[in-house]
Every structure is written in C-alpha cells, then in structure tokens.
C-alpha cells in the first residue's frame, strides 16, 4: 500500500456510487434524489477514468466527456420538470407523484 493503484480509485468510486444509491432509495425529496443521481454519475466517471489510467488509453476520458455533456442536458431537463411540478401546485415528494401508477 505504498503506491496508489487503480483499486484505490475503484473502491472510492464504489463508495460514492453506493452512497448516491442509498440517497436515491431513502430520500423522498426530488431535489435530493436529483443530486444523488449526479453523485452516481460522478462515481461512474471516476471509475471510467481509473480504467483509462490503468490501461493507458484516452477512450475512458472521452466517454466521461460525453457522459458529462449528456448529464448537463439531463440536469437542465430534470430541473425544468421539478420547477414545472412545483409551479403547478403539486409537491416535489416522489411518493405523491403517482399519476402514472394509478
């Protein structure tokens, strides 16, 4: 353990991902769920860059770049949805949003 290996980064990525997943599963505030999804995206980015660093390629970094662009678009649309829900007088509690289920 005198040198940083790829396993370090992979465990860090797993920890971040699992923390984000538990946030998605336990919290009911839609904004917090959104932040936890962003956290999971960042965790996956860490593992992709770690694999690219280990294999000495650049493709992993390019995947992260594209995923980041898609995450930016997803953030804009998701926040627009949250804002529209809040404006129409409904709550942003995910347990109350069951229109599709009923």
């Amino acid at each position: 353990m005198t040198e940083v290996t790829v396993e370090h980064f992979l465990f860090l990525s797993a920890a971040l991902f699992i923390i984000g997943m538990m946030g998605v599963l336990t919290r009911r505030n839609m904004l917090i769920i959104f932040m936890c999804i962003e956290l999971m995206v960042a965790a996956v980015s860490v593992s992709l860059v770690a694999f690219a660093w280990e294999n000495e390629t650049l493709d992993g970094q390019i995947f992260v770049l594209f995923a980041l662009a898609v995450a930016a678009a997803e953030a804009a649309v998701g926040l627009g949805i949250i804002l529209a829900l809040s404006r129409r007088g409904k709550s942003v509690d995910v347990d109350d949003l069951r229109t599709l289920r009923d």
Partner: protein
Amino acid sequence: MSWDVVFFYLIGGASVLTALGVVAARNPVHSGIFLVICFLNVAGIFVMMGAEFLAVIQIIVYTGAILVLLLFVVMLVDPEDLPSFHTAQPLQRYLSFLLGAVLLLEVGAAIITRTGLVGVGPASPEAVAAVGGNVQALGRRIYSNYLLAFEVTSLVLTVGVIGAVVLALPERLGERIGTRRGTISLSHSRGADEMLPEGPRGETPIRVDRTRPAPVPAATRTIIMTSDPDEHTRVAGSAPNGRPATRRPGTITSTKPTETGSTRHD
C-alpha cells in the same frame, strides 16, 4: 508511503464524507453545497489520474453550471412542497442499507479478483507528453475517432435546452403560444402584446417601438436652389476672387446662413 497515497486518502475521504453529507443533510441548500465540495474533490481525483482536462470540465460544468442551476431551483421551489425529513418508511431505509452493503460486497469482490490489462494502450504518459499534453491528446482523439459522437452530443445539448425552456415556460404563456393561430412566436415575453397596435388578433403584429422618441431631423441647414454658387455666401467686401466657377447652374448647395465665404471650404 508516498505522498500520492496521503493525498488520495485526503481527497477521497473528503469526497466520501461530503457525499454522506449530501444524503444526510436536512436542508436541500446544504445538500447542494456538500455536492459542490464533493465534485471539487472528484476533480482532484481526476488530476491524480492524469485527466487534467476532465478535472477542469468537471469544475466548470458541474460546480459552475449545474450546481448553480440546482441551487436556483432549490430557491424557486416552494418550501411547503418539500417533504419533511423523517418520513421515509423504516422498511425502505433498512432495505437500502442492505442493498448498499450487498452491492459493496459484490463490487469489492469484483475489484479484488479482477485481472486488469495494465498499460497496453497507446496513450502512455510519454506519448501524451509528446503530443503536448492531455488536452491536445484528447482533442486529437475526439476530432478523429469520435467525431460523429461529438456532433451528436451537440444535438443532444440543443434538444435538452429546448426541452428545458418548454418545461419551464409559464403555464399561461405556454397555452397562449399553443393556441396562437398559425405562427409560433417565442420572441416576445408576457405583456408585450399591449404595446402592439390595434388590429385583429392572430395577424402578423407590427412592432412599433414607442419607448424611443422620434428621431430629430439632423438637417439644420437650408437648401437653396441657386444658379450662382457664391450668391448667398458672398459677404460684401470679402468676395472670393480667385474661386473657379466649377459649378453649373442649378446645383443644390447647402449653406449656413451665417457662414461667410472666406471661411468656406468645400
């Protein structure tokens, strides 16, 4: 123990702690700020792995753009709409802990028992340095092998922006735009119709900017039709003697009434 390991545990520990803060904070604003710190630490992790460009992009895009957007949305959402903190069902909470532990075990086993391909790619640190750095190497790769994906990404961003604008439009404005006959005009905001001239609705509106005053005509000189150009400018006693008569009769000259012929140069 080298300094790399020390820095890794510092940055990684900070990122994990702030990630826990995101999940555990009661106030959504606190969660957002924890997320900012977590993303800054993730950018530090990227730097440790030689992905400097991604680290900069992470800071600019995530902490600069997305999180600011997120904090604005947090402030725009009515606080009464937010659910209270202690409302998750206990079963849900225990199940999530169980699932997290199981996933951590699985991923840990996979990480420990894996056999990676170490250093088989073309982008060794020496090769990247020979090109000029991480940014140059990434640019060469993106604009050659991944050009189509790059273009499609720009399309995705455009669609995302349009979707966000449509979702965030005020409801009344959206309905009015939807029921407008024939044309869809997003160019003027709510309340701009009162400034339009009268006429049947649905026709092409004529934009009249009434807030700006009418332009003052700049012509303060009188225009005189004359046959002799020096007729009105000649002052008694100071006639321009050597002036060649180049102007034909009937030309339009503009003169100032107070101007004297001796100072005139045209």
